[in-house]
């Protein structure tokens, strides 16, 4: 009997949030087991359930998957969100790898010491404005279609809209000069599964707070 996928991670966005978005957009119900103390993490590791000693880990289809990309690739393929052929997949991969690079900066942002934060934020804004958003705006402009690849919803659209939301949390003005990205965000946000996920009470996680990082530092001693 196929159970629901079960996500093992901290009770926060981090590297698991893209997985939550993708499952939600695909209409897949999932469970979560949160790591709240060092013992939780030790147990997962000692039980040999984390291939490289790291989370995210997702129990799905009888497997215990680790490595964010491997997990996302699997879910996207399984739920037909990965393009119709190899060439569409290559385009999707190219786009989402760029998104992952920007997302990495955003994920790591709360972890930097206060003195470094301003510089890191400036870098995120600069890359968003000059490197990443222009690239995706150009893709949408070049074909004039509703979705990034193949005139059909794919994981690229989901990941990009997630990224847009997170970028706007840092600075709402960053999307000002990207009308097609704004339109994509509206369109994707109105898809029933995504709309539901965007509502309060969903499994979507709130932005990380400085207090939460402090708490995590104490608990996990880093």
């Amino acid at each position, binding site marked *: 009997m196929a159970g629901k996928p079960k996500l093992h991670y901290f009770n926060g966005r981090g590297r698991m949030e893209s997985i939550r978005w993708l499952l939600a957009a695909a209409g897949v119900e999932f469970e979560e087991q949160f790591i709240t103390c060092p013992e939780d993490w030790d147990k997962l590791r000692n039980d040999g359930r984390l*291939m490289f000693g790291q989370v995210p880990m997702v129990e799905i289809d009888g497997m215990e998957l680790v490595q964010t*990309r491997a997990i996302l690739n*699997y879910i996207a393929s399984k739920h037909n969100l990965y393009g119709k052929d190899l060439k569409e*997949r*290559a385009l999707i991969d190219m*786009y989402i790898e760029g998104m992952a690079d920007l997302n990495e900066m955003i994920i790591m942002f709360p972890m930097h010491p206060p003195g470094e934060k301003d510089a890191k934020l400036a870098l995120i804004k600069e890359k968003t404005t000059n490197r990443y958003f222009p690239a995706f705006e150009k893709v949408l402009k070049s074909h004039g279609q509703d979705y990034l690849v193949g005139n059909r919803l794919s994981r690229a659209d989901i990941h990009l809209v997630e990224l847009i939301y997170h970028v706007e949390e840092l600075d709402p003005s960053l999307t000002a000069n990207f009308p097609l990205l704004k339109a994509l965000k509206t369109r994707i946000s109105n898809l029933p599964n995504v709309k539901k996920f965007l509502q309060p009470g969903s499994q979507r996680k709130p932005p990380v707070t400085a207090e939460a990082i402090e708490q995590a530092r104490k608990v996990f001693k880093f």
Partner: protein
Amino acid sequence: MAAKPKLHYFRGRGRMESVRWLLAAAGVEFEEEFLETREQYEKLQKDGRLLFGQVPLVEIDGMELTQTRAILSYLAAKYNLYGKDLKERVRIDMYTDGTLDLMMMVAVGAFKPPAEKEETIASAVKSAKTRYFPVFEKILKDHGEDFLVGNKFSWADIQLLEAILLVEELDASVLSDFPLLKAFKTRISNIPTIKKFLQPGSQRKPPPDSHYVAVVREILQF
């Protein structure tokens, strides 16, 4: 008429080396255009050939692919090195993501100041010995087969060999506790296409030296 794939990168390993390994292992001849000046790099950018303004860039099958993982996944799928189904593919993804993480630890070391460089190298070797190599030793032990996944040569085997050789350059004794990895290394190295790639005169690149670092710093301006 299908042209050979063409690789655009610096004359060194960096993020392109895994692509060279994969093409070579698949028996695919490829051309290389080396970035030697800032002007060449700026031209690629101005001509709109770099989606996010970055290399590696691979011209293949009418596409200009950037983002290392997008390139590697495309090649692996095209040359039947990506498993027979989704479950094999996710295992290959998990293993290659892990080895890529390890290889990146080594690659960034070349660009650090001397004291930090030693620390980075030591840390990478330690990760190899305690986090990554034990995992692959166990995988080989558990199924007793010649290859990591599906009893068939795949991208995962190529990348693990690349990672093993990379770490051995830093610490020749790194495989001393891993007899199955030693046997694996010999076996995979003897595959004809790989054996050829390992010989002098192939397109395999040497470890980064101070000249390489200087050229990259100058071109990327950091």
